[in-house]
């Protein structure tokens, strides 16, 4: 009962802070787990049901279903995929898994292609109004962040749960995933492991002028495996978690398709080790979370055919980081809440290459803010964050230390019976130059300044009652963002000598429209239709005399969107999902020669669940990806696979 009261109290506050404004109470589910999602809007994120219907290979396949995101994919299983939100650039986005940030100070980007989707039970964008004050401070002060929850790191249904999955697909793709979890009111114990493998040598049509030829993508093999252990227990009002996760990767790097020279044998091996833990205390008025994460990321890159040295290139990179943080929320009254927190991230990079720097970074984050509800219909959030970054290069000159203060202000209002919501907010943020950008031999630039982002946002939303057979959700967002001193690599003295420079200013004027609906015709038959459309005019405003002034920046589609239709009849589900991008430009100059064609990719997936006795379930899935066999590339010269198939069998207990 106490739990219910706390939940209601919390919801009372948080209903003002959901994306797109205020949600109707029964559109939001609140679970008292130790995770940091205080509330889950069934329309805004992707829940387990939707994730199952989409048949994603990785986190990128899911994130592209969220509005105002732009995925850059270089193709293939495990290939590099990054996300940028609202035109800010991938380095402004942070991925948070089960309340722990995924960090990479070497290149600042997380490869979404290497985050499995098999164990993800929920994913959402926190790029909009930020309300998850127990999340890592580094994520809260970022330009945008995405949060995901996994099966194994959170308390689940009481008792023993077990998952076993096997997958087989085109290009000799196979994967297995297994997880065992025991949850009780007091204890969580889980173990999981997975393997993914693919030959990856997919066929594609190479168009060269007026000539077409059938080619095969080579050196695209991929192998990864991971395992993890997590334990947790509840003690009084406290919940503790401790986990270990290790992932290993071995993959060929197919590189760009180069005309007349389609051979490469570059490879990458990577070991990623993580130890993480947290403690959440939920009192009557105060909630406190402390957390830590240690990460060691070792990467080996080889290119035996590189012409610079006798035996090619063989370089190892070791990036270590330690994150420590606390976050506190305190409720003074039902209508006034404060939050504050701090986080320290220590990181270093050791590279075996000749003459490489040995950078260390201490990144401190601090945050303080309040959330106030007045006249029962308006909500105001004020927040200030500070960051201090201390750079230390043990093998040469260090980059300059940085100190920044960033404000965030949000105002929400509701209308009617909680069905209409409005939110308006402004956020100022920045992203630090990465170790590579500052210190990489020849290319790095020690004088780089952080890249600044200013975001102005207005959104309205409407939810219909879900007591009816047909219910829907509509949200419309408008935003105006500015990215100042954008860090880009440009050739300096000649085409051999590239350097990182703060040279671009970008203005992003955009909007998105999201429509989610569900039609429960009978108890057994239901339809759901989800549409979203994003319009992002991200233009270069650096120099009025430049030929690219007011041109759309490279690889940013003006139009993008999804249309997903699902039909569920008893235990059978069929989904057709469509993802489209309008044409983009490979470089900032918007000329025909730089055009990269738009694309439409459709995926047809079906699944059938056989419910056996004693909570045993067997699910069969069959998916056709790229149904119409489109030949396309997200990035010029990096061709994507054509039509391909995946068959999955999953056994679940409880």
């Amino acid at each position, binding site marked *: 009962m106490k739990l219910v009261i706390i939940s209601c109290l919390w919801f009372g506050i948080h209903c003002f802070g959901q994306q797109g404004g205020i949600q109707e109470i029964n559109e939001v589910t609140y679970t008292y787990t130790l995770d940091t999602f205080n509330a889950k809007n069934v329309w805004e994120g992707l829940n387990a049901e939707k994730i199952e219907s989409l048949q994603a290979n990785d986190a990128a396949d899911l994130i592209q279903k969220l509005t105002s995101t732009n995925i850059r994919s270089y193709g293939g299983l495990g290939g590099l995929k990054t996300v940028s939100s609202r035109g800010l650039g991938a380095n402004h986005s942070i991925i948070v898994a089960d309340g722990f940030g995924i960090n990479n100070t070497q290149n600042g980007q997380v490869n979404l292609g290497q985050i499995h989707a098999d164990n993800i039970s929920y994913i959402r964008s926190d790029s909009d109004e930020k309300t998850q004050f127990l999340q890592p401070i580094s994520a809260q002060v970022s330009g945008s962040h995405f949060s995901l929850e996994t099966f194994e790191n959170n308390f689940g249904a009481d008792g023993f749960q077990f998952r076993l999955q096997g997958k087989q697909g085109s290009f000799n793709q196979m994967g297995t995933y297994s997880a065992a979890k025991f949850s009780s009111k007091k204890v969580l114990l889980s173990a999981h492991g997975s393997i993914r493998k693919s030959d990856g040598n997919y066929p594609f049509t190479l168009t060269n002028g007026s*000539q077409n030829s059938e080619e095969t993508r080579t050196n695209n093999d991929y192998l990864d495996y991971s395992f993890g252990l997590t334990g947790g227990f509840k003690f009084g009002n406290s919940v503790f978690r401790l986990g270990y996760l290790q992932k290993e990767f071995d993959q060929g790097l197919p590189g760009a398709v180069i005309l007349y020279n389609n051979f490469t044998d570059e490879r990458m091996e990577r070991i990623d080790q993580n130890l993480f833990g947290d403690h959440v205390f939920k009192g009557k008025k105060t909630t406190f979370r402390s957390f830590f994460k240690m990460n060691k990321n070792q990467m080996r890159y080889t290119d035996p055919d590189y012409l610079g040295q006798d035996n090619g290139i063989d370089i190892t990179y070791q990036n270590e980081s330690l994150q420590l943080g606390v976050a506190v929320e305190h409720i003074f009254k039902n209508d006034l809440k404060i939050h504050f927190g701090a986080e320290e991230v220590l990181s270093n990079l050791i590279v075996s290459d000749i003459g490489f720097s040995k950078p260390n970074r201490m990144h401190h984050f601090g945050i303080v803010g309040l959330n106030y509800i007045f006249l029962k219909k308006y909500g105001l959030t004020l927040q200030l964050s500070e960051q201090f970054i201390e750079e230390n290069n043990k093998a040469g000159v260090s980059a300059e230390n940085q100190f920044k203060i960033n404000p965030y202000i949000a105002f929400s209002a509701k209308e009617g019976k909680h069905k209409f919501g409005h939110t308006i907010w402004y956020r100022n943020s920045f992203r630090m130059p990465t170790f590579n950008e500052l210190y990489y031999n020849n290319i790095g630039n020690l004088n780089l300044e952080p890249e600044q982002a200013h975001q102005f946002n207005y959104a309205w939303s409407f939810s219909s009652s879900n007591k009816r057979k047909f219910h829907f959700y509509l949200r419309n967002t408008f935003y105006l963002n500015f990215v100042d001193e954008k860090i880009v690599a440009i050739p300096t003295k000649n085409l051999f000598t590239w350097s990182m420079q703060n040279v671009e200013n970008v203005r992003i004027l955009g909007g998105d429209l999201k429509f989610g609906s569900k039609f429960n015709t009978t108890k057994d038959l239901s339809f759901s239709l989800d549409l979203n459309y994003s319009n992002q005019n991200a233009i270069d405003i650096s120099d009025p005399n430049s030929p690219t002034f007011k041109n759309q920046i490279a690889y940013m589609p003006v139009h993008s*969107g999804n249309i997903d239709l699902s039909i569920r009849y008893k235990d059978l589900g069929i989904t057709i999902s469509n993802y489209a991008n309008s044409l983009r430009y490979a470089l900032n100059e918007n000329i025909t020669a730089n055009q990269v064609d738009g694309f439409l990719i459709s995926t047809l997936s079906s699944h059938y669940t056989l419910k056996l006795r004693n909570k045993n379930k067997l699910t069969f899935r069959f998916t056709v990806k790229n149904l119409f066999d489109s030949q396309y590339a997200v990035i010029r010269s990096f061709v994507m696979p054509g039509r391909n198939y995946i068959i999955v069998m999953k056994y679940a207990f409880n």
Partner: protein
Amino acid sequence: MRLIKFLSCLCLLLYSCGKNNEPPIETESISNGALVLCEGLFQQNNAQLSFVSFNNNQIENNVFLNRNGRQLGDTGNDIKKYGNKIYIVVNVSSTIEVLDANTLSSIKQISMMNGNTAKQPRAIVFHGGLAFVSCFDGYVDVIDTTSLSINSRIQVGSNPDGLAIANNKLYVGNSGGLNSPLMDSTVSVIDLNTLQEIKKITVGMNPGTIQADPFGDIYVVTRGNYTSIPSRMKRLNSVSDSLEQTFDLDISGISSFNNDFLVTYYDFTSSQNNVGLFNTYTEELELDSFMPLEEVETLYGLHYNPSNNKIYISDAMNYTNTGYLREYDAEGSYLQSFHVGLNPSKVLFYE
């Protein structure tokens, strides 16, 4: 099914928005003009030829594609004419494209692969019916210009770049540029009778451009490491094959101008690039500033056309925007500009 079709059409409508293809301009005759090799950018497969007609100032871009129905490839580094053929060196695609000089249609594409390893050709010169191609894999390939086949490979230093011929010898700048910071600093000397390397001359870090003067001297630009070791021009004696002189200027390029050179250098006093007139007889910089460069954003190549007695500068802009060919008279006064492709570097003039 209707609904699926409708949704797919909606998506198609969405992704096809904004497509705009301009019709190509095709020049009728390749004469009295400049054939400009535009390098393009790494991994973009967008090296191309632009033709600037001096008759009507018309510019045709994508000349190679228009005439051959296929792309030139990735990173075009050199273009030269020998006999009635044009040879284009495409570095990352690792090919030599041989074209008919009159029609610009392809005669042969010579693949520059060594097994699975791309040789990455960089520059080309000709002598006695043979073409000599520097390849980044440490060799100079010898190509018979009649059969268009590779006769032999001559091993030199690492990542050979610029080539020049004097005194019946081939001089090869071994840059070692792909092995930064441990770059090469030698020039290989190849006897053109025996086709053997006979000497390596130590000249300074990262040799690139090489140019022969009318008096048998060889000038080479050593580009340094782009930070602490500056770029310098060195003079070699082609009789003794020895380093004779170092010029204390941050020179980055040398171009023939009648019997003299126009040299591009960075002037630390004014913090800007300059073009100077270098007298090859007195072996001195005769004029510090030969021509104004206000119109030029990034000087990427300098070319003198003896047929119309004009100077042309390839302007690479910021290297990611399409460039210009800028025209000057022989006294260095600016005349006009022609908008060409991405990263224009080398130019071949047609009478």
